[in-house]
């Protein structure tokens, strides 16, 4: 029967597509800017990601000294949500993507 034959044939394809989507890593990157205070950036990281002060400060210093810091990575939709929130706080945040493997 057509349906019975079609289903098993499409499953591996679907699995591959799903696996590829899951393997895609989206990164939330914060770039340095000359406007925001260091303490403000730490506050934002704590508020948006729930980081403790040590972790928030580490990312802030990475932004300040290296010009950028990857503050979160994972699924696209969640990453987009974080970038949007960071931009609402007036941080220079961008979305980047790549493969995990």
């Amino acid at each position, binding site marked *: 029967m057509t349906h019975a034959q079609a289903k098993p044939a499409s499953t591996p394809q679907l699995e591959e597509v799903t696996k590829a989507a899951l393997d895609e890593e*989206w990164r939330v990157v914060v770039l340095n*800017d*000359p*406007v*925001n*205070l260091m*303490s*403000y950036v*730490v*506050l934002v990281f*704590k*508020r948006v990601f729930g980081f403790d*002060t040590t972790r*928030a*400060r580490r990312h802030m210093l990475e932004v300040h000294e290296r010009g950028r810091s990857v503050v979160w990575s994972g699924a*696209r939709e969640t990453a*987009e949500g974080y*970038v*949007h929130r960071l*931009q*609402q*706080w*007036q941080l*220079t*945040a*961008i*979305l*980047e*993507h790549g493969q995990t493997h």
Partner: protein
Amino acid sequence: MGKLIEIRLALPVVAPLVDFILPLLDPDSADLPATPDLGAVDHEIRESWHDDLLESYRSEMQFFKDLFGEEFRETGVLEFPEESCEAVVRACASARLKLRTEVLKSVTDEALEGGDFDYDSLGSGERTGFMAYVFLASFQEILIRHMDPGISEN
């Protein structure tokens, strides 16, 4: 009822700075103070993304204008609920960004970040803008210290 925050400012010093800032902050603004990089954001949601940011920015500008309203003009006192600290700090960040993009354009990013530029070489408007920029930073620092004392340690 939560705590109220009361901040008393030196009116003769701060009022001219506020007078300088307020006309720059348009709650009906059609644009964000700086264009966000939406490069990797899904094309289908870019417009709503931008609109959300603009709406958020507009409400912060209105909040800022209300904060430095009539009562402040008469007394030099700012009074707001403690839970509004976050909104005040955010509004200050937006106002500083607006000052940077509108008034302090001639100062490079490196010079502005390091404070390494000749203040005397600035024009009169730029000087006032820079003083307003510094005032807002100090205001933010005070509030952040209150909101989360651990951040300002070390």
